């Protein structure tokens, strides 16, 4: 297990590098929320989820919904690393004609299950998937990754209510609780806390972890699988911009890509030589 944690930590570091390079190339997109989510995304794609990059619509696959669709770069670098499409494609992010749209688009990107980008709608779709898979008596699991600002959308709580009502224990939500949204701190813009208490009140099982502790992420994902009779939410405390010191905890880097000047410094933070 320890070896696996070390392996995944290194994978996550490489994916952070890929996020930074991809966003530097596109000069448009969401850096902070991609970096805060990538450890969880790495754990899902390279450890927990059953999936088949050479057959994206394989029936046995677990499902992943990136509810906070603006963090698409985090999903795209994972999909490329897993082999869903060539890594070179990352350099076309957000370009006219690219299959890597600004927000996840299931029509054009292999490995993307549904369209997201409008916050608050993803969890509902994840609930639908969980219900449908259960109807078919499949044991596939559904993972949904939400932002903490996203929790302000009422629809999230409509979905939370439905998930608990229908006892979708094949559903695991993860909240990327980085404490920031666009206009500032979540607690100051529109407080959503205490997050775990709210989900508990809605009938969910809750786990609280450090969302950058790979061992804790894996343990929580394993634990969630054993909790029956209700959906589980993993509330993961994270740092927006994690890994690049000058992006960390800054709301102003929400939707800002690394500049030419910042790129080498960002790569250096990630322990990577810049040879561009």
């Amino acid at each position, binding site marked *: 297990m320890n070896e696996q944690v070390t392996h995944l930590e290194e994978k996550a570091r490489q994916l952070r590098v890929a996020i930074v390079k991809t966003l530097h190339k596109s000069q448009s997109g969401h850096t902070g929320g991609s970096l805060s989510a990538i450890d969880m995304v790495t754990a899902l794609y390279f450890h927990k989820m059953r999936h088949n990059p050479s057959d994206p619509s394989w029936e046995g696959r677990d499902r992943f919904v990136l509810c906070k669709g603006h963090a698409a770069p985090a999903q795209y670098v994972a999909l490329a690393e897993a082999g869903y499409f060539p890594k070179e494609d990352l350099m076309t992010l957000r370009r006219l004609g690219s299959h890597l749209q*600004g*927000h996840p688009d299931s029509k054009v990107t292999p490995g993307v299950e549904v369209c997201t980008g*409008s916050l608050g709608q993803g969890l509902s779709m994840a609930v639908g998937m969980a219900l449908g898979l259960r109807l078919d008596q499949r044991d596939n699991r559904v993972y949904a990754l939400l932002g903490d600002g996203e929790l302000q959308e009422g629809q999230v709580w409509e979905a939370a209510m439905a998930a608990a009502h229908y006892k979708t224990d094949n559903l695991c939500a993860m909240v990327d609780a980085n404490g920031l949204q666009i*206009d500032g701190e979540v607690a100051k*813009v*529109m407080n959503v806390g205490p997050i775990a208490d709210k989900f508990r009140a809605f009938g969910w099982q809750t786990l609280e972890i450090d969302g950058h502790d790979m061992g804790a992420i894996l343990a929580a994902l394993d634990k969630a699988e054993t909790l029956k009779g209700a959906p589980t939410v993993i509330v993961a405390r994270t740092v927006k911009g994690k890994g690049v010191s000058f992006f960390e905890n800054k709301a102003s880097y929400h939707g800002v890509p690394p500049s030419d000047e910042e790129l080498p410094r960002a790569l250096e933070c990630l322990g990577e030589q810049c040879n561009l």
Partner: protein
Amino acid sequence: MSSMIATRDAYGETLAELGGEDSRIVVLDADLSGSTKTGVFAKKFPERFFNMGIAEANMVGTAAGLAAVGKVPFLSTFAIFAVGRAWEQVRQSLAYPKANVKVVATHGGVTVGEDGGSHQSVEDVAIMRAVPNMTVIVPADGVETKAAIRAAAAYKGPVYVRLGRNKVPTVFPADYRFEIGKGTELVAGTDLTFITTGLMTAQAVTAAEQLKKEGVSARVVHIGTIKPLDREIIAKAARETGVIVTAEEHSIVGGLGSAVAEVLAEECPVPLKRVGVNDRFGTSGKAEELLKYFGLTAEDLVEAGREMLARK
């Protein structure tokens, strides 16, 4: 066409001015106050600014409540979320009771750019136009935006104003007088008429200049208020120039083109071509590239003008 200014910037400035003139004005936003420019007002009048978080439906309802106790709420977010996410709240809580709320949506159309189709609203004008009691305004430039925001504040009832993300050329003189429900003839002409709205008006002015070089006299009529529509100026253009080209940064289904088609069919049927987004979703790309990709440039209008002349 001298200066360039984004209509959302003109909005932010005007809203902050209005805040000083009328203490009933309150402003709501949904975690996009930097982008929609309501942040300018928020800085000046923090006690009259409510950031509602990422909760557009609740924002619309709250604005209706504020209006019900005598405030004059302006609420802002991207067009896709104001109209899309909270449509039935706009209909039920604002339009149905004729609430005095101004929905000022920024980031309309495909020039949203790289964020892609999920964020590019190409149907908001059609949707708002279909709602009874709603006034729908799509300014062409910064000058008109300033005037339209003032007109919306002075008008009693729900108003939808659609603004853009990027800088656009100024087409109106500083002393331009905006009136809700009135179109404007920007360029005189006798051979055909471009009837346009939003950022397409500047493109039409350029197209008219180009056509002039070819000996074609093209009229440009700007429709700043899509609803109520200036039927007279449209019918007059049809009678006097015989063919019409409409242009909008919006779907050709239900927007300005459809509104003009309705008037023409009922009052003066003449050949019409609708230039706009051809019943499809947007996509990621740079704003300028997307205008080309969707056929929304001055060259496209010149082409459409020639095509319609041939049908006379």
